[in-house]
């Protein structure tokens, strides 16, 4: 096999080569031009570029167009297409069973902001160590275009003359930050330069890493005037930072100087490097700053993208459980079942 057709994977202190096909998936059955397909290709690129071990990775989803995404990448990984809005609980359970797994959850705006808002926010609250991607197009594609809870106020249903949305949306980044997620970003399916490093950093982050990605629905929500269309997003995107990702082997100057990029070290030693563009005043480590920024951008009708908030000091949920080193799923009989003497002792106390 030619060397360019393999990817070197480093996992648990050893390295091995896997064919690139292990990182790919089935052909997409989504509409041609769907933003979700772009996100899938960036995901594949991010996983390949950091040499993610597909065997130790799980990919989960809820229900909707977005839920198909796990079938389209990392085919050497186990996938789980769960119930509508309830992917977070399945992911939480899987990580309890095996805290060594890397978990990539894919959801949509209907899945997360409507039926799944509770599970989404509780995953954030627990800081479940997972990448939580929302492929956000402001509508229900699979059921033909109804509004979701991220549809903007005064957005139109299906066409420029369609029914107007009279209910203000949830901002999933605000919900994630308030909920307690330790890594919150917004991006755009058309911004490969920003999204690939964000995805890499999110995968390396230990905690709930939410990326709300505006991902236009070409069939039901890609008309002139839609705030979730390709054209609108391209025209209005205002990146917060230039985002770079540096793997853990690089030597990085820790001390930060005025006017220099902000560098945030992730748990495994790699770094995310953020060079602020317009909002130099924003402190990416401050929840209050992030919420202010989002409030301000909402007022200005800005489509602000980039890393909004990150906290690498808080324990993730798996760490907080304080389980033995061996994944619970792999424990021996002896570790799982106490001895006959233990039962006898318990019987004496009853």
């Amino acid at each position, binding site marked *: 096999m030619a060397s360019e057709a393999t990817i070197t994977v480093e996992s648990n202190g050893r390295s091995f080569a896997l064919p690139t096909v292990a990182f790919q998936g089935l052909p997409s059955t989504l509409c041609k031009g769907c933003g979700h397909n772009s996100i899938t290709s960036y995901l594949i690129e991010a996983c390949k570029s950091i040499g993610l071990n597909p065997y130790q990775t799980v990919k989960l989803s809820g229900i909707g167009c977005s839920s198909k995404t796990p*079938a389209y990448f990392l085919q050497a990984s*186990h996938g789980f297409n769960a119930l509508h809005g*309830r992917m977070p609980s399945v992911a939480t*359970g899987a990580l309890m069973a095996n805290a060594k797994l890397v978990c990539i959850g894919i959801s949509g705006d209907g899945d997360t902001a409507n039926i799944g808002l509770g599970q989404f926010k*509780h995953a954030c609250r627990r800081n479940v160590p997972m990448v939580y991607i929302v492929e956000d197009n402001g509508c229900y594609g699979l059921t033909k275009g109804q509004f979701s809870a991220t549809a903007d106020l005064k957005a139109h249903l299906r066409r420029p003359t369609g029914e107007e949305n009279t209910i203000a949306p949830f901002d999933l980044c605000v919900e994630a930050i308030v909920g307690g997620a330790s890594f919150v970003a917004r991006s755009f399916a058309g911004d490969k330069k920003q999204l690939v490093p964000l995805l890499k950093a999110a995968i390396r982050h230990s905690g709930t890493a939410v990326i709300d990605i505006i991902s236009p629905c070409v069939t039901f929500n890609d008309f002139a005037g839609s705030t979730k269309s390709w054209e609108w997003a391209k025209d209005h995107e205002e990146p917060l930072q230039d985002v770079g990702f540096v793997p853990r082997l690089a030597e990085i100057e820790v001390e930060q100087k005025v006017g220099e990029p902000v560098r945030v070290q992730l748990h495994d030693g790699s770094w995310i490097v953020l060079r602020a563009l317009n909002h130099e005043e924003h402190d990416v480590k401050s929840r209050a700053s992030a919420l202010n920024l989002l409030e301000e951008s909402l007022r200005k009708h800005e489509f602000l993208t980039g890393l909004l908030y990150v906290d690498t000091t808080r324990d993730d949920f798996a760490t907080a459980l304080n389980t033995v080193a061996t994944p619970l799923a792999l424990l021996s009989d002896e*570790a799982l079942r106490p001895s006959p003497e233990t039962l006898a002792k318990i019987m004496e106390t009853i």
Partner: protein
Amino acid sequence: MSTTSSVAEPAPARAAAPKVAPVVNDLAIRVGTVNGSGSQSANLVLLRSLYAMGIPCSGKNIFPSNIEGLPTWFHIRASARGYGAHRADPDILVCMNEVTAQDDVSELKPGAICLYREDFSVDLPSLRDDVTFLAAPFYKLVEQAYPPDKTDKGYRDKLRKVVNMVYVGVLASICRIDMEAVEQGVRREFPGRKAKAAEINIAAVHTGYEWAQANLPTNLPYRVERMESTQDKILIEGNKAAALGVLFGGTSVLTWYPITPSSSLAEYAEGFLKQHRTDAEGRKSFAVIQAEDELAAIGMAIGAGWAGARALTATSGPGISLMTEFVGMGYFAEIPVVIIDVQRMGPSTGLPTRTSQGDVLKMHLLGHGDCRHIVLLPGSVEECYELVIEALDLAQQFQTPVFVATDLDLGMNLWLSEPFRYPDKPLQRGKLLNAADLERIGEFARYKDVDGDGVCYRTIPGTENPMAAYFTRGTGHNEKSGYSERPEDWKKNLDRLALKLETARKALPAPIIEGDPSAQVGLLAYGGSHVAMAEARDQLQEQGVRTGYCRIRALPVSDEVTHFIERHQRVYVIEQNRDAQVTSLLKTTLRGTIADRLVPVTHYSGTPISAENIVRPILGWEKNPSGPGWPTGDVERDNPHASHVEQPSPE
């Protein structure tokens, strides 16, 4: 400590008891109090004293869905014959709550004793002339034992709790309960730092005892004498027993959401796991999560089961409703998970603190479309322990949700039991392939029936082999778990799932069949109803009705149940639900005319089932089998004016 008994005036015993022959070691006591009044310790002391005297006994809380202020009752049964089930007609009533006193008195057996607070405004003795009424100055007595302390702001509240120990002392005198056993019981209730409280409570017991010795008749009929029948036995709640099953079944992930009556099961389980599965460095070989709701609790358990954990969740009826969609998915995606349903009275929130077997059919069929699940039906605290372990193994072996159906009566009440046995087989892992297995076999399709038994092989995430990964989905799939809407794929898969359940059916805990195989009458029961069956069968025998008895321990039922029904002309199916759910299930599955032999006996008032709830309707039906509808055990509730005297009674 003051033990003066002369302060309070003697209470004259009004109305002579019609029965004076002593009744020894066959006793039903009911204590009526108010929720939150601290009577639980006193009641447990009474129960443990009987246990310490070697007399088979059981204890039950009949409590409202309320924290403080509503009426609550504690029932104690002591029976030399080992009967532990509920008896609705107590021999001795302790009335501490005036609100319910009149109703409580109306349910007493003729010849019974009613001990009540002398400060009641209602004239209880005027209500019945076949009951011995004993008024006691409980509050005067407790103030002797625990004199007022002006420096103690919590005095009144403590007094209110300590007063309960006075009736323990009075009952010890009336029934001749061993005072040494009572004292030991008090010290057990107030261990360690509560030792000072123990002494105050013991003083209260003595005050009651000495007052009763001085002022009450000493020849009352209901007595206890030492026996040797509780040696080496344990007194335990079903929820604690099931929690031990969680521990010894090797559970690695437990998820739950608080709901009565299952919360204590999860709390006990977490306690046992923390104590016995934490290593020297404080690291745990388990994870317990109190989820945000039942939707998440089952989702987490399913995620954990999928990823290879021995996963379990515990809930009750309304929780099962919320879990429905995930359980259906778990069936179809074939994920091992155990769900314990400690049943309470529905529908919906229904009677949250009353017992029922109303979820049985729902558990069996939960999901939408064609779903059938394994349901295990423990009939004792010992089986609560054993069948939880069995369920964890079966879930792995058959890669499917497995239910354990207990109920509030079994789960939250105290029962006498043999100590539990250590599991006699290793943890079952089922058809699980690791990386080396895949290398050896060279192929893997998640939903392919390789062995012809409907049970496929699975891999878990983290298996380092290029063949291991598959895509789990609730949508239609082919053998390789690829999305498929092809009719042949769909039907083949659904038929295989039916075959898998048929394979499982033969591996489930067998029914227990006993009694007279040649009897015309068969009795069929399941779950917590079993606690009343031995007594019911003895009573039927005394009335000339010989019976065979089959206890179902799992759904779907085994062929032995069919053979049992074939051997009897009439088979009464005892059910604690209105619609005779298991009878309905059997009628849809049994062949030929034997289905017509089934006659349901239903009890669904929310109260624990008693032998009388079983015997009376069966005797009625045996006399007049052409009557309309089917028998019900709830005669007393249906007809509060039914005369007690006319009812058949074993005494």
